[in-house]
Every structure is written in structure tokens, then in C-alpha cells.
């Protein structure tokens, strides 16, 4: 009911301001007149009566203002006026406005860009229905000796998949999958398509319905049923022009026809892989063993089930799995008890994001600090402005403007600055993100999902307003305060500046320097990390001169083992014949290439293991003759493999240096010794230098190098290999053409995949570090620049304010050099304090970066010594420039000017 009275009043106050104002005047006038009359009756003379009446009201103007406040009209009307006023002030000071806006636009733009990456990559749910129910089914096996990456991520074996899928109580659906590439022929040029092999339960868990057609079903998994597959949206568009009649058509995969049964919709990504083809895995249940831990697990939790409950469920099923299957007659399933297999389920999102989360938060933090420094700079500018207007503000305060009123006006002005800067910043961020997506750092997951959405814009507005408040409040508190008389007095022309007036700005500069130091230290640590990584010997040389490509020969094309090897040998010979090629080799996978590793337990002759003990696992690689020579991997002892060894099916092998040391004490001692995986013994003919298989930041694993074709071992032979070609002509279009022609002259239906140089692979393994380095470098650079601008501003303002004092000192005989040093000293002291505070903060904060560092401690003495030196030197320079102007002051002029 109250609105019945209040609403018309509000409107009236708003729309008929004149009338309302007049009424207020009339009302108070009436009061005054009556009071005067009364006073006269009491015997005061008219003049006194008037004064007494005014006094009784305690200041007519203030009271009117309070009445207006009571009516709330002020809020809106004042706001409009403040806005106009603010805009005018900004227009009147174009240089100030430009500098402030640019600072803010860069700061807010950088923050918006980084936040939209954080938002898209880390915060937004994965693009699956009820994505929070999805988990990656991972396991740990701390007892599995040998492979480090095994201990913290033991994949699922097919038998585990069946046990878990059939016996669980907590999953709606559970499946296994693995990514890879398969050759597709008959469409255009033969190509190596990105594929994902999935078991039943995988698509059900992800829950994304096909665009057309159907999902792969359990029937597609059974041996003997027609061979089928699904297409990814992009591949469907590229190869079939989005034709909806593809369902039911055939496509040649690995030289065998497969029927297309469905197409996944646009934007569908398989966890972290872009899949062209989705193919059903086929497990022959009757032949499954315990081992073959090669598959990634994915599951959808039943509603309301927590990850902890699901983990407990899996833990319950591990013994069931061990009892239900066997590795074959004569083997003991209990050996896996020593592996201590335990579930390590985690949200699927984490699986997708990987280890980039830490990096992004560090970058977000640093860029936030840059924003703080930018705010400090703008606050500094505003302080100078407010100082210049101090007298005006003081007079207005004396005339009855309340503290809130003046503060509001200053805040509206800074709010305007913030929002305008924010708008510009969004533009910058938009461009920056487009650039980022077009560069497409390979190690950034969910890149295609990055966009400026509502949440990002809300963040930007909030950031703009918060920073406006931050840099606007400092001058508002300082100058809108009730210190009228002091301000009026000290703003007089004849007094020199008080210490008080500089304190706030000094504090701001100290804070800026401290923050800049922290950022520079973090950038410095990343540089040191990068350099440390570059000095690590990766196990190959001159990566830029190594052209690599992956070629697969499917059984449907060539069935016989020996002929596969002959064909690979032919390709090598043809490649070696290209002008400018010095040597050629191939292997099951290159270092750092990220090919799914092969591994198993290896026994050295003369060693014995208990029945319930599995010998340590070793990484397996199959290599061709000449591979190490081509890659530039040093032979430490013995000799490299020859084609005679391969075709003669000689039981020979090579080992890595660290494995030789572990088993036989010294590399030369390894030559002639024998090892075995199953029954057959292989003679060690050579020892090669350690290779950083998993990237330079990871320890070199122990590796056994088998010949590319091995007589009768379980793994047999490698049909998909990566060729390496050493030549000075790598990367040129002509060279790549010659390579393609050479391969197709052997067989025209062989696709070449992942054509790149070893350098690309190497850089890819450093991508996370270089990404962090670049981001922190940019942040550190911005911080340094803004910090220097801050110091420069403070010193140069101090000089301009103290011209008079300088003039007096000079007139009294002070030396110019001495005066200059006085100002430089001022800058030096500020920076010194800032550096000291910054060092303490850095020591604490750098612990957060520990996981991103390599080869150095978070307290790296060199960085902590160098950064302050650089910062202090730059700061002294920044204060020297304005200080020179102090020395150039002409005393006569300075004193006359007053």
C-alpha cells in the first residue's frame, strides 16, 4: 500500500525538479520568516533576529541538501550530473585520459583474455550432458617397478573392462577406448585418419546422441559381425560434404571395407581427441588374459554416487578380476598383488585438462598482479589530478558539499575511466584470443571452446568496477576528506610541499615495485627453467634436420611379415636416394612423439626372480638398422643393428645406457650378455645413450631396443613406424613432395601421417614451459614497464612541486649534482623498500610454482640476485631522468614564478 503514496512522489521529484525545488525553498523560507517574527517579538533587532533564525537551522544549504538526499532524487540526478562532469573532465585532459585508458585497457584486456581461457578450459563443464557424472577410470600400481608413468597411471586391460563393466554397482555405463590413426584409402589421396577405438559403454557414458544414424552397438563388437564405424562431424563435412545419405555406405579402412552407421554432431570431441573415425574394438572373450593394460577407461556414475564410492567399488572388483582371468597356464595371477593396483578415479574434466590447470592459474595470478600495478599507476595519475584540484575541492567543501558528495564525484569519474578502459580491454582481449586460437598452442586443451561468453563479460565489468573503486577510492579518501582548512592553507602559493602529500604516492610506488619484483622473479625462474631444459641432452642431434613421418602397412594390404619388412626397407632405400639425404631409419616411435609405449618385464641371464615377483618393466622400442645413426643417438658400446641381423632373424637386441649400468654395472660389460622377455634369449649387441623419451623434463627411462622384425616373439613385428630422414632440406615443399613420391613409388596406397620435423616434436614437448615462459615474460615486462612509469611519475612530480624549494636551495649555494642526487636517492629508497618487500613475498609465492620448474630451486640464488639488480638499475634510471630537470632549474626564474 505504501507505494500508493510514494510512487507519485518519486516521479514528481524526478520529473518536476523545478517545482519540487521551489517548494523546498518556500517551505524553509516560511519557517525562517516565522522564526524571525518570533525573534523580533522576543526583542531582537531585525538583523539579529535573522541571524539567529539562520543559526537555528544549522546551515540552510546543508539542510536543503539533506532534504534532497531524503527524497533520493539526488542519487539519480546527481549521478547524471556527475557523469556529465566526469566526461567533461576526461575530455579536458586528453593526455591524462589517454594514458590512463591505455593502461587500463591493456590491464583489463590481458585479464579478460586470460580469464576467458581459464573459464573455457578450467571452469566450464565439458560439452556432454550431465558432464559432472563422467569420470576417467584410472588406476595406480605403485608396486610395478620399472616404468615411472605406470605407477601413477595403470591403464585398463580388456579383462578388467569386462569385470568392471559387468560387476560394478556404481556406474551407469563404463567403457574403454584408445586413440590412434588408421589409413583410409579410396576417398582422395590415401590418408592417415585420426581414430578412436571404443568398446561398448563408451558412447553410452559420454551420452552425446549421433547427428544422424546410430551409435556403435554391442553387436558391432562381436567377432564375425559386419565391420562398422562412425564418422566425426568434421570428417563427414570434409570427405562427404555433409551428405546425409552416407549411412550404410562403405569406406576402406586399413584396406578393408567398413560400413558407416552414424555421424557424431558438430563440436563433439572424444575426451581430448578430435576423432575423424570412431571404430569398435573387438575383444575375443575366450582369448583374454589378465595383462595388456593398454586402454583408457571412462564411466558415467549413477546419479548421486560420489567418486569415492565408485573408487571403493572398483577396489572391490580388483581381486575379482584377478581371480576370474589368467595370463595362461603356468602363470600366477597373484603376482599382480605385488603391483598394489588401486583405483584412482578422477573427474573426466581433469583427464581432459591434464596438467595445464596449474599453469593457467599461475598465469591468471600474475596477470592479476599486473592489473594491481596498473591500478596503482592510474591511482597515481588521479592523485596528481586531485592534488591540482585540491583548492577547488576544498572550496566546495567549505560551501557545503558533503564528503560523500565529493567522493562520489571522484568515484564516478574513475568508474567512467574503468568502464571505458574495460570496453577497450574487451576489444583487445577479443583480438588476443583470436590470435591465440589461430596460433593454437597444442598443449592447450579445449582450445576450440574458448570464447568471450556472458561469464567473461561479467568478469570484465566486475573487474573494471572493482579496479575503479580501488584506484578511485585512494584520491577520494585523501581529498574528499574533511580537512578543509588545512587544504586551503597548504594550497596557498607560498608554501612548499609537505611530506604528507607525497606519502600515498610513495606507498603506491613501493607496492608497484614489490609486485613487479615478484613477477620478474617468476619470469626469471621460468627463463632459468627453459635454459636448463635446453641444456639437457635429449638423445638426438640437430632436430631441425630430421624429417619425420608415420607410415602404416595394414595386414589387409600385406599379410606376410617378411614382406612388410621388405617394403619398409624399400621405402628407406627410396628415401635415402633423394638428393640431400644423408641417412634414413625408422622405429616404432620416436622420442617425445607420444606414441603409446610398448613395455614388458625383461629378465637378464643369470638373474632369478621368485615365482610371485614380476621383474621390472622396461620400455620397448623396435628400430631399424641405421636408426640411431640417423637420429644422432650415440652408440656407447658395441654396434648398431644391420639388415643382415634383421633378415637373418638373429636374436639380438640393444639396450639403453642406464639399463646396461643397472643390469651389468658398465655399458661395455653389457655387450654379449643375454636377455629375454619370454623364452627366447636375445644377445645384447650394442648400448646406446639414454634418450629422454617422455620429454626433457622427465628422467630417461630404461629401454630395450628390439629389431624391427623379430622371429617368434609375442609382439612380432611393427606395422606402423615413424621414419626419420636426415637432410639439410627438411621442411621445404619440394623436399616433402619428393618424399611423398618416393613412398608412393613403393606402394601408392600408403598414407603419410604426422609429417613434421623432429624439432617440432621437441618443441612440442617444451610447449608447456615455453607457454608459461612467454605468458610470465609478458606479465613481467608489463609489470616492469608500469612500475618504471610509476617511479618516473612520482619523482618528476616531486621535482615539479619542489621547484621553489630547489630554487631557494640553489640560491643559497647548493650544488646541482647534490640536488640531483637527492631526487635519485628518493627513487632509490622507494625501490629499495619495494625490492625488500617483494623479495620476501617472492620467497613465499614461488613455492606455488615449484611444479613448473626444472633443474633449479624456487629460491634460485642467481634469479634472486639478478632481478633486484636489474630492477634497481632501471628504477635509478627512471628517477635520474626527471631528477636532471631539478638540476636544470634556474633559481631566479623558479622564485620569480611564484
Amino acid at each position: 500500500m505504501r507505494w500508493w503514496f510514494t510512487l507519485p512522489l518519486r516521479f514528481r521529484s524526478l520529473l518536476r525538479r523545478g517545482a519540487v525545488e521551489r517548494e523546498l525553498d518556500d517551505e524553509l523560507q516560511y519557517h525562517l520568516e516565522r522564526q524571525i517574527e518570533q525573534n523580533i517579538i522576543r526583542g531582537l533587532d531585525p538583523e539579529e533576529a535573522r541571524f539567529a533564525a539562520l543559526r537555528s537551522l544549522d546551515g540552510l544549504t546543508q539542510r536543503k541538501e539533506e532534504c534532497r538526499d531524503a527524497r533520493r532524487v539526488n542519487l539519480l540526478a546527481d549521478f547524471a550530473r556527475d557523469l556529465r562532469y566526469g566526461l567533461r573532465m576526461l575530455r579536458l585532459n586528453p593526455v591524462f585520459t589517454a594514458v590512463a585508458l591505455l593502461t587500463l585497457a591493456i590491464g583489463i584486456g590481458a585479464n579478460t583474455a586470460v580469464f576467458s581461457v581459464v573459464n573455457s578450459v578450467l571452469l566450464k563443464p565439458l560439452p556432454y550432458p550431465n558432464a559432472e557424472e563422467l569420470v576417467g577410470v584410472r588406476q595406480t600400481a605403485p608396486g610395478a617397478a620399472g616404468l615411472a608413468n605406470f605407477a601413477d597411471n595403470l591403464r585398463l586391460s580388456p579383462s578388467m573392462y569386462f569385470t568392471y563393466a559387468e560387476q560394478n554397482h556404481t556406474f551407469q555405463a563404463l567403457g574403454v577406448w584408445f586413440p590412434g590413426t588408421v589409413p583410409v584409402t579410396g576417398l582422395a589421396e590415401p590418408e592417415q585418419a585420426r581414430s578412436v577405438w571404443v568398446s561398448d559403454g563408451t558412447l553410452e557414458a559420454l551420452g552425446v546422441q549421433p547427428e544422424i544414424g546410430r551409435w556403435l552397438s554391442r553387436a558391432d563388437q562381436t567377432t564375425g559381425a559386419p565391420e562398422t564405424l562412425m564418422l566425426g562431424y568434421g570428417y563427414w563435412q570434409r570427405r562427404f560434404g555433409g551428405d546425409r545419405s552416407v549411412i550404410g555406405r562403405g569406406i576402406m579402412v586399413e584396406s578393408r571395407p567398413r560400413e558407416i552407421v552414424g555421424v557424431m554432431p558438430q563440436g563433439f570431441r572424444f575426451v581430448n581427441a578430435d576423432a575423424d573415425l570412431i571404430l569398435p574394438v573387438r575383444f575375443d572373450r575366450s582369448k583374454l588374459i589378465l595383462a595388456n593394460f593398454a586402454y583408457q577407461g571412462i564411466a558415467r556414475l549413477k546419479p548421486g554416487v560420489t567418486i569415492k564410492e565408485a573408487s571403493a567399488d572398483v577396489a572391490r572388483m580388483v581381486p575379482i578380476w584377478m581371480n576370474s582371468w589368467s595370463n595362461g597356464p603356468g602363470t600366477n595371477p597373484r603376482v599382480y598383488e605385488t603391483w598394489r593396483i588401486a583405483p584412482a578415479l578422477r573427474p573426466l574434466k581433469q583427464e581432459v585438462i591434464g596438467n595445464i590447470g596449474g599453469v593457467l592459474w599461475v598465469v591468471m595470478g600474475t596477470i592479476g598482479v599486473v592489473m594491481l600495478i596498473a591500478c596503482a599507476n592510474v591511482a597515481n595519475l588521479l592523485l596528481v589530478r586531485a592534488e591540482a584540484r585540491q583548492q577547488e575541492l576544498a572550496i566546495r567543501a567549505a560551501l557545503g558539499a558533503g564528503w560523500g558528495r565529493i567522493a562520489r564525484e571522484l568515484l564516478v569519474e574513475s568508474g567512467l575511466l574503468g568502464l571505458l578502459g574495460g570496453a577497450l580491454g574487451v576489444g583487445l582481449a577479443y583480438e588476443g584470443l583470436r590470435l591465440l586460437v589461430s596460433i593454437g598452442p597444442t598443449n592447450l586443451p579445449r582450445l576450440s571452446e574458448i570464447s568471450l561468453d556472458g561469464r567473461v563479460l561479467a568478469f570484465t565489468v566486475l573487474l573494471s568496477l572493482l579496479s575503479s573503486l580501488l584506484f578511485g577510492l585512494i584520491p577520494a579518501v585523501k581529498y574528499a576528506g574533511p580537512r578543509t582548512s588545512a587544504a586551503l592553507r597548504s594550497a596557498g602559493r607560498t608554501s612548499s610541499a609537505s611530506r604528507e602529500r607525497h606519502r600515498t604516492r610513495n606507498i603506491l610506488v613501493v607496492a608497484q615495485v614489490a609486485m613487479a619484483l615478484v613477477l620478474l622473479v617468476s619470469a626469471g625462474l621460468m627463463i632459468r627453467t627453459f635454459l636448463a631444459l635446453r641444456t639437457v641432452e635429449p638423445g638426438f642431434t640437430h632436430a631441425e634436420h630430421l624429417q619425420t613421418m608415420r607410415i602404416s602397412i595394414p595386414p589387409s594390404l600385406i599379410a606376410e611379415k617378411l614382406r612388410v619388412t621388405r617394403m619398409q626397407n624399400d621405402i628407406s632405400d627410396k628415401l635415402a636416394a633423394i638428393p640431400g639425404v644423408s641417412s634414413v631409419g625408422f622405429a616404432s616411435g620416436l622420442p617425445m612423439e607420444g606414441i603409446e609405449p610398448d613395455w614388458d618385464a625383461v629378465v637378464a641371464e643369470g638373474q632369478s626372480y621368485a615365482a610371485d615377483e614380476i621383474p621390472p618393466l622396461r620400455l620397448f622400442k623396435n628400430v631399424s638398422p641405421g636408426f640411431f645413426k640417423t637420429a644422432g643417438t650415440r652408440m656407447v658400446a658395441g654396434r648398431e643393428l644391420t639388415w643382415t641381423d634383421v633378415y637373418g632373424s638373429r636374436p639380438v637386441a640393444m639396450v639403453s645406457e642406464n639399463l646396461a649400468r643397472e643390469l651389468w654395472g658398465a655399458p661395455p660389460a653389457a655387450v654379449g650378455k643375454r636377455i629375454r622377455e619370454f623364452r627366447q634369449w636375445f644377445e645384447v649387441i650394442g648400448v646406446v645413450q639414454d634418450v629422454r623419451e617422455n620429454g626433457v623434463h622427465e628422467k630417461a627411462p630404461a629401454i630395450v631396443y628390439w629389431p624391427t622384425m623379430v622371429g617368434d616373439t609375442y609382439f612380432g613385428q611393427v606395422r606402423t613406424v615413424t621414419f626419420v630422414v636426415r637432410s639439410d632440406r627438411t621442411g621445404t615443399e619440394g623436399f616433402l613432395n619428393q618424399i611423398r613420391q618416393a613412398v608412393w613409388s613403393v606402394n601408392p596406397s600408403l598414407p603419410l601421417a604426422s609429417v613434421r620435423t623432429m624439432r617440432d616434436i621437441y618443441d612440442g614437448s617444451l610447449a608447456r614451459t615455453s607457454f608459461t615462459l612467454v605468458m610470465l615474460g609478458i606479465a613481467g615486462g608489463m609489470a616492469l614497464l608500469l612500475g618504471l612509469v610509476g617511479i618516473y611519475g612520482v619523482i618528476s612530480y616531486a621535482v615539479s612541486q619542489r621547484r621553489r624549494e630547489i630554487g631557494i636551495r640553489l640560491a643559497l649555494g647548493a650544488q646541482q649534482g647534490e640536488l640531483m642526487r637527492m631526487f635519485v636517492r628518493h627513487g632509490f629508497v622507494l625501490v629499495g623498500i619495494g625490492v625488500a618487500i617483494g623479495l620476501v613475498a617472492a620467497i613465499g609465492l614461488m613455492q606455488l610454482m615449484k611444479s613448473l620448474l626444472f633443474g633449479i630451486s624456487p629460491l634460485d640464488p642467481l634469479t634472486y640476485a639478478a632481478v633486484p639488480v636489474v630492477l634497481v638499475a632501471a628504477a635509478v634510471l627512471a628517477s635520474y631522468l626527471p631528477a636532471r630537470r631539478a638540476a636544470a632549474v634556474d633559481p631566479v626564474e623558479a622564485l620569480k614564478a611564484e
Partner: protein
Amino acid sequence: MKPSALVQGTLDLLILKILALEPLNGWAISQRLKQVSGDVLQVSDGSLYPALHKLEQGGWVTAEWKPSENNRRAKFYSLTRVGRQELKKEAANWERLSVAITQVVKLKEA
């Protein structure tokens, strides 16, 4: 502390109570306040008007321009229905508060 300092928020109550008797203009309200409280409550004329405007804005009182007792136009305030309810509520509150305070003040030292 001045003994007569007006307890925060009680000015509204006093105004509402005075207006409950009859519609009055600002000047008259200030005179009435001084009369009834016998100069104990020194309500500053200055704070009276903002309070009145606040009450009007809140819908508790309504105003109209009428000729005053000396035939000049003045702004007369009167209580609205919600204002009456508010007065009842505030008066009851005050009652409780003053009883409570009186009891505390009268506590005898043991």
C-alpha cells in the same frame, strides 16, 4: 553526552505522534515539539525538515499546501494510514525499550 541528546530514531516517533493529533506545518511542528517536551528535547530545527521529507518519501506522512493560521501558504503534513500503523508499532517499541532501560537504571547495587 548531552543529557538531552535525542535518542537515535526517536525524532521520527515524536513527529508521527504530533501529527497524529492534527495536520501541521513544519514551523508548527517545531513549536509543538518545544512546548510538549518543555525544552528538554532540544530538537534542532535543521534536522526536522530532512526527517519530515524522509517520512513523506517513505509514505508515512503526506503533505499539502494550505493557507496557514496567518494566511500565508505553508506545507501541511498529515499522517497516512500506514503512518498510523507505523506510529503504533514504534510507540510499542519505545514502550518496551523505556521499560527495559528504566529497569536497568533502577538496579540496586548489591
